């Protein structure tokens, strides 16, 4: 199986879904821990310029979570529920409190590739294409990639 060393992303053309895939040099169990242990999660959820403080965190089926990002003295809150926590799958909701009416349903799957490697599949479902596009836009960062490599890929695999 090919290694997906860099995150791939696909915005479904007709459904409000974003799908991401990425391989990690870790076991399923370690990847699960990195997503459920608040002390570990806090270290990588980022972004780089931001420090994360966990407000509350109960990573069990039916539990809930909330964390704060502090950037330039401004606090941004995020919260949601853990709908399902299993060894190879987490289903949770996600809301940015700056847009409190918006909620995303996140399904994370940890696929064992053997040799201590695991593939993360992350799917986000929001309530409308418009909401999804706004979501994509809110994730914008500095730096623009020129070129049509992404378009080529989308065209060749029929996503466009």
């Amino acid at each position, binding site marked *: 199986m090919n290694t997906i060393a860099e995150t791939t992303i696909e*915005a479904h053309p007709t459904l409000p879904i974003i799908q991401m895939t990425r391989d990690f040099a870790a076991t399923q169990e370690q990847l699960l821990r990195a997503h459920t242990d608040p002390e570990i999660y806090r270290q990588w959820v980022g972004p780089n310029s931001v420090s994360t403080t966990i407000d509350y965190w109960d990573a069990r089926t039916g539990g809930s979570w909330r964390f704060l990002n502090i950037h330039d003295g401004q606090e941004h809150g995020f919260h949601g529920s853990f709908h399902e926590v299993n060894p190879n799958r987490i289903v949770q909701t996600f809301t940015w409190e700056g847009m409190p009416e918006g909620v995303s349903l996140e399904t994370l799957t940890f696929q064992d590739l053997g040799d201590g490697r695991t593939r993360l599949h992350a799917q986000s479902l929001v309530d409308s*294409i418009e909401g999804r*596009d706004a979501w994509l836009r809110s994730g914008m960062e500095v730096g623009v990639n020129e070129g049509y490599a992404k378009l080529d890929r989308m065209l060749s695999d029929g996503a466009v």
Partner: protein
Amino acid sequence: MSPGDGQKGRVMTDRLSTVFAALADPTRRDIVARLATEDATVGELAAPYDVSVQAVSKHLKVLEEAGLVTRRRDAQRRPVHLETEVFDLMTKWIERYRREAEQRHRRLDTVLAALNAHDETTRTQPENGTAS
């Protein structure tokens, strides 16, 4: 969304929605894929399909209204041209989001490497040798 995005952002979002809607149809996606390699006339585009030139013209009209294609006025052929900058708008947004996710995943790599190192001290892993 960050503050100050306002009007411009809304216009861009509306445009993007029109683009996504235009691409919701499989025949139109196929037309776009074919135009990505070279311009073509309506007749050429209609040839592989079991539909009339009129039906293909209708699809082209939707693509034209979304700004995805243009038709040159010159001569009889009026070849259809794919406006790739519209895809730029789409792919730039997606690419920026992807990059942010990739940065997050690289931080996760680092954290997992530390977890690996920690786990190895408490557990024997016979086939290990790739941990960085």
